[in-house]
């Protein structure tokens, strides 16, 4: 019992089956990059399907895209890009063994992530008020404008799910770092930040695709 308590107070980053931390780091980073490759195809297929459908009826897509609330989208772009900055500094702070600073920046990152979701929620509310959800009371008629909005909800929805996962992961790190339950040398910080950047990068492509370029 005493031993276990001691172990929890002096966290060790090394996990099974590794004998060296540097090797474990290498594997964790490689594993995350492989997963990100997979995610690229996940979103890539979605962007491809969107572009293909847009090419079938560019006029209807342009009309539909003009109803998207670009102010919300632009604000969210700023919020998310800032969050990538804070998590990057958090990782560097951890590398420099400055645990308190790292914890604060992780908290800032999670807060910005939540802020994004809140702004997105307001945008969704406005979209629903304007009857922009495909279906019987859809505002723009029974044509490819519905396809645009189907993609809008699918793409932003999938992105929001990814971001929610990211917020949970960052909050977990925040809690562990703050309580001193995790070694600052753990590869988890870097790996989580990689995931966070990817979710950010998807938004950076998604925002111009849906809000700007499609307007035509």
């Amino acid at each position, binding site marked *: 019992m005493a031993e276990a308590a001691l172990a929890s107070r002096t966290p060790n980053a090394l996990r099974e*089956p590794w004998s060296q931390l540097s090797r474990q780091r290498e*594997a964790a980073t490689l594993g995350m990059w492989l997963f990100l490759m997979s995610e690229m195809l996940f979103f890539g297929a*979605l962007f491809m399907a969107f572009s293909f459908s847009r090419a079938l009826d560019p006029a209807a897509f342009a009309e539909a895209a003009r109803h998207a609330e670009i102010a919300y989208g632009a604000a969210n772009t700023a919020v998310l890009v800032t969050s990538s900055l804070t998590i990057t500094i958090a990782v560097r702070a951890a590398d420099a063994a400055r645990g308190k600073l790292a914890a604060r920046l992780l908290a800032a990152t999670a807060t910005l992530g939540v802020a994004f979701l809140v702004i997105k929620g307001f945008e969704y509310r406005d979209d629903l008020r304007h009857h922009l959800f495909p279906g019987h009371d859809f505002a723009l008629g029974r044509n490819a404008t*519905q*396809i645009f909005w189907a993609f809008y909800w699918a793409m932003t929805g999938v992105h929001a799910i990814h971001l929610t996962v990211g917020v949970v992961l960052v909050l977990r790190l925040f809690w562990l770092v703050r309580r001193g339950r995790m070694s600052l040398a753990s590869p988890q910080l870097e790996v989580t930040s990689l995931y966070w950047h990817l979710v950010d990068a998807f938004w950076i492509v998604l925002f111009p695709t849906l809000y700007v370029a499609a307007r035509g």
Partner: protein
Amino acid sequence: MTDAAAPIDHAEPRSRSVIAGSYLDSEGGGLSEWLLTTDHKRIALLYAVMITAFFFIGGAAATLMRLELVSPAGHFLTDDEYNRVFTLHGIIMVWFFLVPLIPATFGNFFLPLMIGAPDVAFPKLNLMSWYLTLIGGLCVLAALLMGGVDTGWTFYPPYSTAFSNSNVALAVLGVIIAGFGTIATGVNFVATTHTLRAPGMTWFRLPLFVWTVYATSLVMILATPVLAITLMLVAADRLFGLPVFDGFRGGDPLLFQHLFWFYSHPAVYIMILPAMGVVTEIITCFARRRVFGYAMMVYAVLAIAIIGFAVWGHHMFVSGQSVFANLVFSFLSFIVAVPSAIKVFNWTATLYRGQITFEAPMLYALGFVGLFTIGGLTGLFLASVPIDIQVTGTYFVVAHFHYVMVGGAVSAYFAGLHFWWPKITGRLYSEAWARFAAVLMFFGFNFTFFPQFILGYLGMPRRYHTYPAEFQPWNVMSSTGAVVLAAAYALPLFYLVWSCFYGKISPADPWHAKGLEWRTSSPPPKRNFLRTPVVTEEPYDYHDPGAAPQAEARPVDAARLAAVAPRPIGGAHG
């Protein structure tokens, strides 16, 4: 093969306590020790149990179909029930049996052993993969219990989105969840191969099974996400009414087919590449011969994995895609056959002047080569646009892919099961029964599926349960063959389980095989090797380069003839 590896010191004496100190014993045998394990070997066994269960569920559906097809009028099932039965058969067999079949069982068990690693790179993620696959499978079974799905395993819209009155969303959700399990497995295996190879285990000393699992994992990582998002869009239509593929509102149902086959054609290589790896290990061992053209085998595996991403359009020759697209996809489909043919020639060349013996694993492996060749060659028929237009949607297609997936992948699975069974369990099975089952499986398989080539050529469409009377003889033949095949699949269940309790104790290396997995005890200890092995030799070092292979008596024969006689394994390869 190695100088430091042989952990022999601990392997004897072992009379009854064959599993003492092994992975089967060290963590404890309780249910929670198994369900919460992070040992790759135990996880492999969890997968094996799960896919065996799914195999029999999918097989039960196939049995119903063959029973229904005995008579032209179809007495047992209604149209709607028949649709649900073949859909269930397809979904279960593709995603919950064939995709995890070899990578998740032998890949999990032997990838770390073959590269001299104590475990996979991310042991907890490995367990999570199993749970994701299990949860996905339970979703599909729940959809079955709630009345089934009638779309076919391909979920084509607009039927799946706008018309089907069945549990499409739940089944699709199950496939998506299992897909994330597949991606996690792929990430794990690639990272393991990159970072956990033992000292001296260079890339071109890797056993070819490792290469095939590596290439398969890359396909899993890059193809599965496309399936996931595509099926999510189908689910989004069914659950929330988002009409992405709705032609009435300006969407394109064909877009679904492109995305679906962008995954599902590479998925065929997820099934067959590891099967090729298993067969390579076995043929080289039972011919006592180095693999002919090792480097070429590696390049062929990688070429299949890469080119496999560019041939999906051959599933859509009659869909209305452009003639130009048809020509390009036809050409690329012929190209992807070249590396497959290279592998067949290399297996044949490996056998040439080998000291061949015909133990059960070898019988299954040789069966694989023949059946895969037929499956592959008929694939070329289908890659050619005029023939494909003639036989699209007929039993010719059904026969073709069953030759590749069942004659190919499943035969290879049984080959590997018999080859590695002594290593996994530490016991020897009855060789006579195993040989009998192998021959019976080959016979039963051809008996079941060869008539379907003829049926398809004559014009019988797939997915119908009534047909003109002239097709009956071939259908009866196929259904009779299915009985033989079912018996051949059930047999190993008995003699393999029997061997767990009453089988003779296996030595560490019963086949005198090369490869690190044989340089540790049977069954292996929890962390695989007592000392990290150091590799100093080329792979498949069965004979001196340039010299003829020698015949030799194997310890497995001695063990079967005499009573259990533990052998000092350390000197075996001297």
